């Protein structure tokens, strides 16, 4: 024990005496351990830990497997949900939720709230207990009784200051009273299922009569609790059986509609899981590079300590005793690196939370460096010490006694030099792997942003509103949108404005799909009729957004009237689908059936990507808003300058028109795109950061090895200069050494990157995982950094005075 304390004291003294060595080693380890701990804390919270519900393993999500349209996880039609719930043999309970928005009216203004309508048994199924008051009872779901709501903890604190008298108070939601019966606990997952937004309140859903027979459209999200011991696969087979019966009973709507059951936990992490495991792998590579670097530093320092170790051996210290001496220093370094690493992990977690796409990753707030994560850090520290300490301990515990004592200076054997070179080769190979990964994601990101979305994305402000309850009649609603667009166009800085029902890149769209047929052509059976999206637009929409008119004309004010002829514009996708060889102008199409009014096609516009950069355009028919009474519309406002500056006056202008108007979404197209690309940007930011750290560590490693080599080759360099080598020759000689090692590492790294490229394949966009440009670029960057890292010691070597060098011992 005394010996051990003595060794620890020696180790600490040694580290204190060599602050540069100690500082670099501790910082390197801290970056590796800290980054790994931070990513682990995310994975632990989101993937490894159970959801915060009793027996959460029994909770599942249930979907329609829409084989007709190739959508394996489609929302559920209300009537199908009712039948599944009644006829299944594997579920304790099933419940459905529907994301919704409600306007909370206070005084003369209204605030939009993100709500969920939940069917009976939803909270019981999850096993949630109220924080305040109560949750829903069966009678709350009975039509005709007073509406009741439960508040999320966040809204209760934010909107009502945590007032405990909130229970029993009536709120005005969408102009109707609703009584608050309880408040949910703060840890309740408010983004459950509808992860795009945190939800403010839950509404007890009352099943409408028409819903109980609705199998055509599907918009409910279903959760269930399985009977004990039942697996998701067994439950899926059970519901598939029910779905097959329904297909026989209701062939028009239910043919080719099956069921899909996915564990709730698996569903909630599925979108982020791949990215997080990829990042964990990447940070593991950073840790390995850090270990290789510190091992190299220890070997270099060991060479300087050779005489000391030789003397210790000569005085009777055996190999095990010397190994313990070195190992003590290794453990002390690892512990110090770990302590600083934990600080890095705390920063890292904060950074990840700031960068992470919160609208896609649930439970972000729950991520923390807690006792469990610190336990992982402890194990990681031990593993790290083993990784970076094993080789130096083995090498340094067998000093070359003759060489060390005779020469009285550091003696580096060829074997040890080979080990150090091997470590550099390994870390450059690993760094290249990370560079290639980050490069591929970066290339994908650039390709994505450069993708033509079909409209001009710059200087566009967006305001989404729902006006189903604000207007007394359809005529009033039509007039409101005419007035609103005129009002918006009068706002300073606005060039034009238009509105659309289904806005590209906006999540909360009202997508209307209709079967159609071309007038004059034979009508197919209903299940075989082609589908198109029905989009409602105001006359100035195409010009404002910058969607080009390819044939004919766009829609005008004259078309935007209920008494005007019903003319429509179609997009290129629908033209290709309906008139692959002919001219659609002047032709008619009908929606759903031959009894619907004919729609005359007056123009063809370019395709617009709706669901995202990588989503293919969809067939669309554009109908003038004046012919409809549609209330879910999104204003697009083309501005002269920064669109963000126009948003506040635009909101004020619409409030002047209707003081109680709420906005479901306001922002710029830039903001919308930022949300769409957020997951890729998140992975890119972290992977890019890891690649930069890896590159930096590799550079430090190369610098260290080359500097060490220069120091030990001083005499040789002097001889070369005496024989006529110019400074440039010496620089070339030294740089070549660093670049040669890196080139070997780069070659190995390229082989590894090509072999492992499939790991990132799912995250790429229009870029091959073996993209030559990226592979070459990464190799060039790495070799460039290696040359730069070697150049500094090379320049020092070139300044060696040959006379001094020849005297060098």
């Amino acid at each position: 024990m005394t010996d051990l304390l003595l060794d620890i004291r020696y180790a600490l003294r040694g580290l204190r005496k060599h602050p540069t060595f100690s500082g670099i080693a501790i910082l390197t380890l801290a970056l590796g351990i800290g980054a790994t701990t931070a990513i682990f804390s995310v994975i632990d919270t989101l993937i490894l830990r159970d959801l915060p519900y009793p027996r959460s393993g029994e909770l599942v999500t249930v979907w329609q497997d829409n084989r007709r349209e190739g959508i394996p996880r489609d929302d559920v039609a209300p009537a199908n949900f009712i039948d599944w719930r009644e006829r299944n043999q594997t579920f304790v309970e099933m419940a459905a939720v529907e994301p919704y928005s409600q306007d909370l009216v206070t005084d003369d203004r209204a605030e939009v709230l993100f709500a969920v309508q939940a069917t009976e048994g939803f909270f019981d199924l999850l096993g949630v207990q109220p924080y305040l008051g109560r949750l829903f009872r069966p009678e709350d779901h009975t039509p005709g009784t007073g509406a009741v709501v439960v508040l999320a903890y966040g809204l209760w604190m934010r909107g009502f200051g945590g007032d405990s008298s909130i229970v029993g108070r009536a709120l005005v939601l969408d102009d109707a009273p609703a009584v608050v019966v309880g408040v949910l606990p703060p840890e309740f997952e408010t983004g459950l299922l509808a992860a795009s937004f945190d939800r403010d309140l839950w509404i007890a859903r009352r099943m409408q009569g028409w819903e109980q027979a609705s199998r055509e459209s599907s918009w409910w999200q279903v959760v269930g609790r399985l009977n004990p011991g039942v697996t998701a696969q067994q439950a899926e087979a059970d519901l598939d059986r029910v779905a097959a019966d329904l297909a026989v009973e209701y062939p028009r709507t239910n043919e080719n509609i099956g069921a899909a059951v996915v564990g709730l936990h698996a569903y909630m992490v599925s979108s982020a899981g791949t990215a997080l495991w990829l990042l964990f792998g990447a940070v593991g590579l950073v840790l390995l590079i850090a270990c290789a670097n510190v091992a190299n530093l220890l070997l270099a320092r060991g060479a300087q300590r050779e005489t000391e170790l030789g003397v210790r051996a000569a005085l009777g210290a055996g190999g095990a005793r010397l190994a313990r001496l070195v190992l003590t220093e290794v453990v002390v370094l690892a512990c110090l690196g770990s302590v600083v690493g934990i600080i890095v992990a705390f920063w890292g977690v904060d950074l990840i939370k700031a960068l992470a796409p919160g609208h896609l990753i649930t439970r972000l707030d729950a991520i923390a460096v807690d006792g469990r994560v610190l336990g992982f850090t402890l194990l990681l520290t031990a593993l790290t010490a083993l990784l970076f300490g094993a080789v130096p301990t083995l090498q340094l515990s067998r000093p070359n006694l003759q060489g060390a004592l005779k020469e009285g200076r550091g003696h580096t054997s060829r074997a040890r030099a080979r080990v150090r070179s091997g470590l550099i080769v390994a870390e450059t190979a690993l760094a290249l792997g990370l560079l290639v990964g980050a490069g591929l994601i970066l290339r994908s990101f650039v390709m994505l942003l450069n993708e033509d979305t079909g409209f001009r994305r710059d200087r566009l402000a967006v305001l989404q509103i729902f006006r189903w309850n604000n207007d007394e009649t359809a005529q009033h609603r039509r007039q409101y949108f005419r007035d609103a667009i005129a009002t918006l166009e009068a706002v300073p800085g606005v060039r034009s404005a238009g509105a659309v029902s289904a806005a590209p890149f906006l999540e909360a769209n009202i997508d209307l799909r209709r079967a159609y047929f071309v007038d004059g052509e034979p009508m197919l059976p209903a299940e075989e009729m082609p589908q198109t999206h029905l989009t409602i637009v105001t006359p100035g929409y195409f010009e404002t957004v910058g969607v080009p008119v390819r044939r004919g004309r766009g829609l005008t004010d004259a078309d935007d009237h209920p008494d005007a002829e019903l003319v429509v514009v179609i997009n290129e996708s629908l033209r290709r689908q309906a008139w692959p060889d002919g001219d659609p102008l002047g032709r008619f199409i009908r929606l759903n059936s031959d009894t619907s009014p004919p729609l005359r096609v007056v123009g063809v516009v370019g395709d617009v990507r709706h669901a995202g950069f990588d989503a293919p355009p969809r067939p669309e028919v554009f109908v003038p808003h004046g012919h409809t009474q549609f209330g879910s519309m999104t204003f697009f406002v083309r501005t002269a300058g920064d669109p963000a500056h126009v948003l506040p006056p635009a909101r004020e202008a619409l409030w002047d028109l209707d003081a109680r108007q709420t906005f479901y979404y306001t922002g710029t197209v830039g903001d919308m795109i930022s949300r769409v690309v957020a997951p890729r940007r998140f992975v890119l930011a972290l992977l890019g950061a890891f690649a930069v750290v890896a590159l930096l560590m590799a550079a430090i490693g190369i610098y260290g090895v080359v500097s060490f080599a220069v120091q030990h080759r001083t005499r040789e360099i002097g001889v070369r200069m005496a024989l006529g080598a110019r400074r440039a020759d010496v620089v070339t000689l030294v740089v070549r050494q660093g670049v040669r090692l890196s080139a070997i590492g780069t070659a190995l790294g390229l082989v590894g990157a090509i072999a492992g490229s499939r790991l990132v394949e799912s995250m790429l966009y229009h870029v091959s995982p073996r993209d030559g440009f990226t592979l070459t670029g990464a190799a060039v960057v790495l070799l460039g950094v290696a040359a730069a890292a070697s150049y500094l010691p090379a320049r020092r070597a070139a300044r060696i005075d040959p006379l001094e060098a020849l005297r060098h011992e």
Partner: protein
Amino acid sequence: METDSLIRLQDVKKVFYTDEVETHALSEVHLDIAEGEFIAIAGPSGCGKTTLLSLLGLLDSPSSGEYTLAGESVAKLDATQRAFVRNRQIGFIFQAFNLIGDLTVQENVELPLTYRKMPPAERKKRVLDALERVGMAHRTGHYPSQLSGGQQQRVAVARAIAGKPAILLADEPTGNLDSKNGEAVMQLLKELHGEGSTICMVTHDPRYAENADRSVHLFDGRIVRDEASDAAHELEESGFELH
């Protein structure tokens, strides 16, 4: 006499400054070395022998004075120019051999030629000629660690003569050798001298100094004696010419 000098030092001084101490390593050195001459520089430790050799070898520059090599003033050359002259005009033989351990015998001898950008075929021929000249052609693929001290010094001599320099500078070439190997190396230098090489050798061993045509004795950084060696006297007295 002046026009025949291969090397001429005129009033050369070398002063080293360390902290506030000024050390005069060489003072008022005048030295002429003719082409084909074999000169020994002798003197006690610290007298300035190695400093003088370093100036002659352009490893260092004089603090003042003039240095002319083959008719060209070389005292004020920059580092690159000095490297150029060293590579073409000067061959070094060191006491500690200074062969590069990671290079084979052939590669060591080839080293100065690589800095001349000489075509590989010519380099190879010159290397083989030089190694044959010193009797080491059978060890071209060996590494220095596989050779004895005497063999290493012979390779070092081959490296020095491979470039056909104007002058060979030898710094205690026998200092790290036993007497037998020392004699062998001295014999090699004598043979090279006999073939026309100009040699300037630093030694503290009077026996080896006697092999030179001329001995220059240094003391406290000054040349205190510059005389033909006993062997040369004997030759002169017997009626033979030195060169």
